[in-house]
């Protein structure tokens, strides 16, 4: 309902002009501009544009000056228009339909190539629903126009296109009612006629010899003018085709009897006339080499009586017929929803069908080349046909599996906290979950964060728990052999590292020490931990600064000052500083009493110039080595032994 009513003819003319200019420019901008400039109802404008496009196309076709490319460019323009939203989605299809209706078949080929190439466009959301029916109708019209035997390729292309366009369950593509092509009538000479082949036939035969046995029958060149023909077999054989065409006939008694008789005769002939493997395959190989092995396709059987002998000796032909039997039997035996209730086989018929099926398979297997393989393949394909049949019987259910709606199990740890404004605000702070069990579970602890923090959720072991075993093993008194130590277990080691990273500051101490293996590293850590434990995890003082300067040369990991010296009489840093200061240059004397090795002493000397520092280093080294044994008592003893009784006393006082 626009205030200005759209003047149809004017608008259409404007559009037409704009379309022509857009075609000339090869882009749709001018068309879009024109569209937006015109005032009016969107819907009305769209329909007007559609009409304009059709009109332009019509003019082009009538003028006959335009070629396929021009039509195609107009259709491209219309596609753009739809994408831009200025034209209705059915327009390109309508235009296509118009074009195909008006053009001769060879040009339709080109247009159809365009259609094929743009399958993705047609399948896109904006086009699909609007256009699929149009496309279907268009393709069916084309198919009707084309001859199946002359334009086989084109027909095939159309069918393939339809197959790609529509989803598998598209009902229009299915032979839902399992109908038969009743028009496929096989014509043969029921009466003796002047053979149309006659002389010509003999020449043809000499030109293009099909594969056959040379010694059988009357095939030697030069061909005689006529050969004896078994009309009896000929007629019976081709009458069978009528039963294949319309299997429903088989359910009638009289037709069935005829079918039975003729089939028995024909199959007896097949059985008696065994195809020679050697000759057949040799010739085929030769033919393949010479003619490139092109497979000849016959849309319909050639039923001249003179070809009967040749056909009987051809393995491909035989396979065709035997396969027809198998397909027929499958239909007769199968459950097809659309068969009427009168179409039921009685016992005799069933028995005969089974026997004959066995015979047919046996004949297939005997037919060279690769009879066995062919027979198994055929059996397999017919079995899969059963599946398709049952699919059709069920009304063609979709193949897309619907995703089942299942609720994911709720994991409390990852659950977001419920919004506070509607849960848990009741007087008893109980949150109702709708289900008693759930309510009970939820209200064990409504506050999830608190629940997470509860001690029962603490899964990480403490250092002493985890390392107890390792510490025990590290104790030389226990005499545990290296290879049995638990620190050698890589699993244990990995967990130990993780635990250390979470719980122990030792982990983060930088070190120049190189460890050959995780086990060695763990050994040292264990020894450090052993010193600390069984005390509870204390508050660590991580002394970082000083330690960076020190680099001791001994094998043990350089220890920072984190060895707590609280309750046990371990020597404190402060004490060590004092002693070092007092020792000064005389630290070497203490060294021997501390049972320091010469190597270590040399290292200390090289490490630092300052004697106080050296003394300190000595004490630190001693402490490292001793671990938990680095007690005041021991140090005092050593000091006294070294003759530093004053220092010892001061130590004891402190």
């Amino acid at each position, binding site marked *: 309902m626009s205030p200005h009513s759209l003047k149809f003819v004017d608008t259409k003319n404007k559009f037409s002009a704009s379309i022509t200019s857009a075609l000339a420019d090869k882009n749709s901008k001018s068309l879009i501009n024109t569209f937006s400039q015109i005032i009016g109802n969107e819907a009305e404008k769209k329909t007007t544009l559609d009409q304009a496009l059709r009109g332009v196309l019509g003019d082009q076709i009538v003028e006959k000056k335009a070629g396929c490319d021009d039509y195609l460019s107009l259709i491209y323009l219309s596609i753009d228009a739809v994408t831009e939203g200025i034209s209705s989605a059915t327009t390109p299809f309508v235009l296509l339909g118009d074009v195909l209706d008006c053009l001769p078949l060879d040009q339709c080929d080109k247009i159809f190539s365009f259609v094929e190439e743009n399958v993705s466009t047609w399948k896109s959301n904006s086009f699909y629903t609007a256009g699929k029916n149009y496309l279907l109708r268009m393709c069916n019209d084309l198919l009707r126009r084309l001859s199946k035997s002359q334009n086989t390729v084109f027909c095939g292309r159309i069918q393939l296109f339809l197959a790609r366009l529509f989803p598998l369950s598209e009902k229009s593509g299915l032979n839902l009612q399992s109908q038969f092509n009743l028009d496929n009538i096989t014509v043969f000479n029921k009466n003796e006629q002047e053979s149309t082949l006659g002389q010509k036939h003999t020449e043809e035969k000499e030109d293009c010899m099909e594969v056959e046995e040379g*010694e059988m029958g009357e095939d030697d060149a030069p061909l005689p003018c006529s*050969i004896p023909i*078994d*009309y009896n*077999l000929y007629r019976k054989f081709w009458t069978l085709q009528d039963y294949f065409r319309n299997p429903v006939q088989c359910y009638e008694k009289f037709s069935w009897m005829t079918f039975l008789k003729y089939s028995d005769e024909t199959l007896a002939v097949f059985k008696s006339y*065994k195809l020679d493997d050697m000759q057949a395959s040799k010739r085929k190989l030769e033919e393949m080499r010479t003619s490139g092995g092109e497979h000849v396709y016959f849309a319909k059987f050639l039923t001249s009586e003179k070809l009967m002998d040749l056909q009987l000796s051809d393995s491909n032909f035989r396979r065709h017929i035997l396969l027809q039997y198998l397909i027929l039997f499958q239909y007769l035996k199968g459950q097809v929803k659309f068969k009427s209730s009168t179409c039921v086989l009685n016992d005799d018929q069933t028995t005969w069908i089974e026997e004959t099926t066995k015979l047919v398979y046996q004949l297939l297997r005997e037919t060279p080349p690769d009879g066995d393989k062919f027979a198994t393949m055929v059996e397999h394909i017919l079995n899969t046909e059963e599946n398709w049949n049952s699919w059709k019987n069920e009304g063609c259910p979709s193949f897309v599996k619907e995703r089942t709606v299942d609720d994911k199990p709720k994991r409390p740890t990852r659950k977001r906290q419920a919004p506070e404004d509607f849960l848990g605000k009741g007087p008893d702070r109980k949150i109702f979950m709708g289900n008693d069990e759930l309510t009970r579970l939820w209200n064990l602890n409504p506050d999830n964060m608190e629940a997470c923090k509860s001690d029962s959720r603490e899964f990480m072991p403490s250092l002493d728990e985890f390392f107890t075993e390792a510490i025990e093993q590290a104790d030389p008194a226990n005499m545990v052999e290296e290879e049995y130590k638990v620190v050698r277990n890589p699993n244990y080691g990995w967990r130990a590292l993780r635990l250390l990273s979470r719980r122990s500051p030792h982990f983060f101490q930088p070190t120049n020490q190189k460890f050959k293996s995780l086990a060695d590293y763990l050994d040292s850590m264990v020894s450090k931990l052993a010193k600390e434990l069984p005390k509870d995890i204390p508050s660590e003082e991580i002394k970082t600064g000083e330690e960076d300067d020190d680099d001791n040369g001994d094998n043990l990991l350089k220890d920072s000052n984190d060895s707590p010296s609280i309750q046990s009489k371990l020597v404190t840093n402060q004490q060590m500083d004092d002693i070092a200061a007092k020792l000064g240059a005389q630290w070497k004397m203490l060294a021997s009493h501390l049972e320091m090795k010469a190597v270590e002493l040399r290292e200390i000397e090289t490490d630092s110039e300052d004697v106080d520092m050296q003394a300190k280093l000595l004490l630190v080294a001693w402490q490292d080595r001793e671990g938990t044994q680095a007690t005041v008592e021991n140090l005092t003893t050593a000091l006294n032994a070294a003759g530093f009784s004053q220092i010892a006393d001061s130590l004891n006082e402190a």
Partner: protein
Amino acid sequence: MRRGGKTEVLNNKQCIYMELLHMSVFSQSFSPCGRFLAAGNNYGEIALFSLSAALSPEATGLNQKPVLTFTAHEGPVFSLLSTDCHLLSAGNGEVSAWSWAELTKKNAKPLWTKRPNYKSSLEIPEINSMAVNPSDNSLVIGGGDNNVHILDLEHGAFKLVLQGHSDYIHCVSVREREAEILSGGEDGAVRIWDSRTGQSVHCIEVYKYKTCARPQYGKWISCVTTDSDWMLCGGGPSLSLWHLRSLSPTSIFPLTGCQRQATFYQDMILAVGEGSFVSHCLLGGEVKAQIPCMPQSLNTLQLNTNSTEHRVLTAGGSSSHIDVFTNLSYRAFSLSF
């Protein structure tokens, strides 16, 4: 079994049925024009079948019946032979000649009947086989008196008697190029005679060759046929292909049963005998195919080389049916007496 005796007990129809049941076809011959087939049975009758009618598209069951049946001899018609215008039939010790032209007009009157000179007058030996020697227009007759008689067809007189076999002769064949006659007999020997001098040139005792011999069947030779350089013979011993220059067996065909007639066809060998099938064999000795037939065992096999459009293979045996093959690989239909 003769018609007559028991007719008052059995009615006519049953009688005929019984006859048919016991009928055997012993011999066949195609007319010179190729459109007719003459077949002789064990009752001494010859039936004439029209091939053109039987092979036509509108053929009915009636066309598979003979157009003419007549009694030719008192005994079984063991051998039939066609010359350019005559049909020669041999029965109990005598040879009769019929005119094909007359026969097609359904006039069954023999032109002449002759009897070879048998030494013994007590027993009349049957004539098992005949062959025509076109080079001197003579008829070679193999008889039950162990001799081969040669009848000059022009003059109508017996000119030679070839003696040598010690038992009756089953089959004869003519080797045109060398003007030789081959005969095979119950005594197991295949003799090669010079047709001009009448002397036995060679004598092949087939049963003495280990490769062919089948002592369980006997030593008799029931079929001999020649292709100038090659010879097929079989019977008690296996069917074998012989090279006549070297007189040695080249291929042995592993067919069960005794073969009663064999012939060369293109590069194959067709043989019939015991067993209800026609055997197709390759020259190398392998059996390519065995095409099933109606009669339980077959006595005679003929190829109609006189006409291309009626070029069929017919086989008859221990049945009143004669199988016709348009395509060698399967039986098309049967003619019946």
